[in-house]
């Protein structure tokens, strides 16, 4: 009666072996490592780098234990932190600034386990220390910027097509183009429709007033916002790369938010500085008409112009009048490097993409002997980096900015421009910094409380239910094994609340076993034979186990849906734990009981 067919035992053993295999990597510790990744978009790290980096390290007297290539970066493992730091310095010196050399911790999981995709659990920041940022993308600014750019495109197109136009202005949510008559309106309408396929173009002609209205339809707006977040994420990736952080997390959360997690970062001020800088580059025309400048300085800025200050090399700040129209933005910049110009003054060398190069060529051709300004816009405030006079047409997309900057400043500016500009400014809405010692403490505290709780339950169960108690404890152990294996396999980040959920799940998982054991006792009390008692005990308990666990699961799922960050970690473990506990309480414990009692034909007593 209480026998399982052989296949069930085989299945159980397979499950346990697999679980043990995938939980195993957690037992191996971590060793210090050095990670080499690309510091520039144009530089790619390849497999060949593995030998190169190893050779550099070996030459410096520290031979890596292990070196391999993974996901675009080379990782080298060392036996202690001393050799790790030595190797980092050596590699950094040899490879230069094109590469980011970061300190890292790598799991000591043996290669054969890694080949099976067995990896240790991912630890959350609260367990290993680091910085967590939640950034919010300013969508309004993103839309404004896109409208400005569209206005610029329209202007260029009409000029190209030799269609005479009046004022082109950016209104609240649209671009308005004034035209002279019905004829030019029709021509402009046709040209603009061809240029801006995704946008809504309306011709309006009332009382001799001819206007072209360009608006973003809902889908285009959505696309715009999506792109803004995506571009910001890419930019953040590049910026974080500059910090040399190993395994950073940069993810979109919700509609317009981005989570950035930098494990192990200590210098939070520097991190925040780099992340928080919402720098974009704008190229605009300078108005050198002295009359207009004087008027503007008297507080009467002409329409379509903006007054800013320019920092000169000698440290003086002088007012400068700029046109509002943005000719070129940082989006068209591919590359930026700090260097020196012909006169050995610090400079930033820019590389433009095809569009940027064309725009810049036209711009410089049409404005020879005029000044153009490079403006670095940070947090909505613009600062003129430099405003050189255009000597002649610049083609080919190679631009050099030099002027009033020091070496450090050139480096800084280049870094920002190289990292790409943000599509829209971002604000830090949430920030957490956890010291590494606190992280270690959190792990040990969480681990200890689980251990003590588990021990208390196990001892009680074994005394109170004897053989059935031992079986329950084994089932609970199997539950823990399954849970850890699943968490490791699915790559769910373990946080402190996650550890709490493991503890809670274990505490609650014993409920199923208690239900079964009590039922068996009850059946015996009612005069059932031991075999019948086992059979009925499990059968009757099962309904209750199912009902009570499903209700708990409902609560867990709600947490999973609404939760963010640490709470989500809790919910994942909780939900998975409920499922593994049902499996181990019903299947594992029954299999063991069957193994112990099933073959005895003349069973007279049960140890329960």
């Amino acid at each position, binding site marked *: 009666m209480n026998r399982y067919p052989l296949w069930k035992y085989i299945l159980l053993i397979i499950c346990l072996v697999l679980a043990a295999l995938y939980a195993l990597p957690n037992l191996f510790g971590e060793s210090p490592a050095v990670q080499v990744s690309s510091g520039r978009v144009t530089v790619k790290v390849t497999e060949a780098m593995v030998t190169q980096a190893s050779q550099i390290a070996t030459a410096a007297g520290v031979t890596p234990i292990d070196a391999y290539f993974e996901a675009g970066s080379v990782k080298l493992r060392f036996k202690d932190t001393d050799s790790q730091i030595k190797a980092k310095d050596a590699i950094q010196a040899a490879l230069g600034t094109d590469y980011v050399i970061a300190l890292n911790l790598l799991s000591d999981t043996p290669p054969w386990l890694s080949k099976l995709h067995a990896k240790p659990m991912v630890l959350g920041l609260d367990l290993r220390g680091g910085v967590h940022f939640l950034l919010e993308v300013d969508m309004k600014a993103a839309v404004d910027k896109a409208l400005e750019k569209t206005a610029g495109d329209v202007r260029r197109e009409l000029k190209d097509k030799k269609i005479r136009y009046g004022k082109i202005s950016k209104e609240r949510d649209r671009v308005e183009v004034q035209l002279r008559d019905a004829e030019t309106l029709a021509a402009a309408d046709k040209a603009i429709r061809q240029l801006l396929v995704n946008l809504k173009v309306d011709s309006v002609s009332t009382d001799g007033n001819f206007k072209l209205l360009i608006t973003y339809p809902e889908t285009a707006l959505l696309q715009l916002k999506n792109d803004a977040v995506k571009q910001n994420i890419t930019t953040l990736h590049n910026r974080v790369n500059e910090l040399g952080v190993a395994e950073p997390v940069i993810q979109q959360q919700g509609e317009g938010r981005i989570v950035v997690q930098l494990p192990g970062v200590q210098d*939070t001020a520097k991190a925040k500085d780099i992340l928080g800088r919402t720098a974009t580059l704008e190229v605009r025309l300078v108005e050198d008409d002295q009359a207009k400048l004087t008027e503007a300085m008297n507080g009467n800025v002409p329409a379509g112009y903006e007054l800013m200050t320019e920092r000169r090399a000698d440290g003086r700040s002088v007012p400068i009048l700029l046109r509002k129209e943005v000719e070129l933005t940082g989006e068209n910049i591919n590359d930026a490097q700090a260097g020196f110009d012909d006169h050995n003054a610090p400079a930033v060398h820019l590389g433009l993409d095809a569009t940027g190069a064309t725009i810049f060529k036209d711009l410089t051709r049409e404005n020879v002997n005029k000044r153009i300004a490079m403006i670095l816009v940070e947090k909505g405030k613009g600062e003129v980096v430099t405003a050189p006079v255009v000597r002649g047409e610049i083609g080919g997309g190679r631009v050099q900015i030099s002027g009033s900057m020091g070496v450090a400043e050139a480096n800084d500016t280049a870094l920002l421009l190289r990292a790409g500009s943000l599509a829209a400014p971002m604000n830090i809405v949430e920030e957490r*910094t956890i010291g590494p010692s606190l992280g270690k403490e959190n792990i040990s505290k969480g681990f200890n409380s*689980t251990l003590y709780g588990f021990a208390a339950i196990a001892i009680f169960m074994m005394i*109170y239910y004897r053989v059935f108690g031992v079986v329950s404890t084994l089932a609970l152990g199997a539950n823990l094994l399954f849970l850890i294996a699943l968490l490791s396999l699915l790559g769910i980040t373990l946080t402190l609340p996650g550890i709490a959920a493991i503890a809670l799940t274990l505490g609650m998982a014993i409920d199923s076993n208690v239900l079964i054991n009590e039922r068996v006792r009850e059946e015996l009390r009612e005069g059932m034979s031991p075999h019948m008692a086992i059979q009925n005990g499990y059968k009757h308990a099962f309904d209750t186990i199912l009902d009570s666990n499903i209700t708990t699961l409902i609560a867990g799922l709600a947490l999973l849906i609404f939760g963010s960050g640490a709470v989500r970690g809790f919910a994942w473990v909780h939900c998975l734990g409920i499922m593994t506990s049902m499996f181990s309480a019903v299947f594992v414990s029954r299999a063991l009981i069957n193994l112990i009692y099933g073959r005895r034909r003349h069973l007279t007593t049960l140890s329960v």
Partner: protein
Amino acid sequence: MEFFHVKRDIPFMSYGKLTTAISLATFVLAIFFLITKGLNFGVEFTGGTVMELRYGQSVEINQVRHGVENLKYGEVQVQSLGTTRDIMVRIPNIQGKTSAQLSNEVLDSLKKERADVELRKVEFIGPSVGDELFTHGITALILVCVGIVAYLMLRFEWRFALSAIIANMHDVIIILGVFALFQWEFSLTVLAGILAVLGYSVNESVVVFDRIRENFRKPNLRGKTVPEVIDNAITATMSRTIITHGSTEAMVLAMLIFGGAALHGFAMALTIGIVFGIYSSVLVASPLLLMFGVTRDSMIKPVKIKEEAVV
């Protein structure tokens, strides 16, 4: 070994009036504290900056408080985190100042007095995030309730669903009341704990309900009245109830004692939740079930009389 082997059914239902009165009193008291004192919402909900500091040697909390108050940030909270070396500082959001500036200023000012202070944790949360979390929390709570009620209505009957959810909310309100009374910090992990309690406590009610349903179907209990059936169900599951609660409580207490400050609120919410969970599943949900007029017929579908076939 058996601790709770009760030969005769304990007449729980005859205490119904008393237990309902006690429940009602604690419930009203909890609401009273919630209204008068309110919850001490953590930084996740209110926004602001929280710093966790550790001193090399034990420190006088007033000294730290004085040091922080000198900076004039308005309503600053300084409290100890379990030991005399660990201090928590809470600063409200200040316009025009980033958390980095705030935390640096506080640390600098404290370092001037005592150089052995170390920053362990800084948390800054903007006000908008807090509002969102609040609505999310409420949504989750409602979602859990609706889900549980729906499931219980499907598996049992409306009376069971209603009793369980009322007993459950009773637990939640009481936990909230205790948090309000002692002004313990209500953080996101505490909320997670409370939602876990919701699941846990309903679990308890379900075990008892399950037995009630089973009892209604048992032939040897057919002559018994409804209260007697319920008494029997509670008595029969009592051993399991106590042992299960004991083990969960052991786990949670281990967390409370060894888990440190970070898990304290969570473990506390669960500790209270488990104690009241046992009480409410037995002494609140079941009397409510009776009050809603549960009968044998509400659980057992009337057997259709088969028409006899005429051959």
